[in-house]
């Protein structure tokens, strides 16, 4: 069983890395790029014996406690292979 966690900065939180990427893409000729936001993806391999419901509860807890800082970040995740 896998959980894929996506973490991104909340709207309104300055993302200087994203801005640098958008600026560079613009300089490279990709003028259609209006903005870029950088986030991260964390893949968790989970015990196959876990029910999907339990996995969702546990992964949500992991996000709240460690994986995301909810002051500045939001998260979402998908569980697969249950």
């Amino acid at each position, binding site marked *: 069983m896998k959980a894929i966690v996506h973490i991104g900065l909340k709207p309104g*939180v*300055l993302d*200087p*890395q994203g801005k*640098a990427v958008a600026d560079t893409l613009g300089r490279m000729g990709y003028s259609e790029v209006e903005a870029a936001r950088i986030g991260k993806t964390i893949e968790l391999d989970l015990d196959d014996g876990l029910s999907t419901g339990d996995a969702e509860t546990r992964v949500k807890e992991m996000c709240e*406690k*460690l*994986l995301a*800082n909810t*002051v*500045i970040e939001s998260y979402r995740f998908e569980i697969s292979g249950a």
Partner: protein
Amino acid sequence: MKTAVIVFPGSNCDRDAQVALAEATGKAPAMVWHKDGTIPDDTDLVMIPGGFSYGDYLRCGAMAANSPVIAQLHAHAERGGYVLGVCNGFQILAETGLLPGALVRNASLNFVCKPQALKVESANTAFTSAYAGKEEVTIPIAHHDGNYMADEATLDTLEGEGRVAFRYADNPNGSARDIAGVLSENGRVLGMMPHPERAIGGHEGGTDGLGLFESLVGAVCGCIG
């Protein structure tokens, strides 16, 4: 006055903290390893030093904030003990929730390392009483993720309750409202990006950091200020 320094893998200002606390209090601090160390029961001040705990993996301070020693830190803070988090120590305190807000990448994306002019917002705190009559002090900064962020309501509360201890005279990292250091609600936990332990009159130059430690000694022993 009894002090302790928590040491994480990747802490690199723990020895400077040790020297500064020993000089200010006349007694060597307990050096507490994060994993199996114990904060001595009668500790007055716990210092969380700068560095790159856990290599800044995931987010600065995130892993350290979930270390075994942190439960003891919470207990120390709950019984009204003093806590000083410097640089990475500030990031860790924000991650533990002992202080509000978060520290993110400097707006410039650059690592900044220089003597920094700071405005002392109030000399009416346990950490700043020795700065009475001094509006500005110079204390070194050295960080990549010192951009303090919190929502507007939190920032208003911090300012309204006099919990902004220091502001940058010229904002080096994009911090909201130029905030360089914030206090907890009870005024006993301070997180700051500048390094007072690097300005205590030794080879590193500058003495403006001394006042912070003298203030704490005064607050605990009632001998200064």
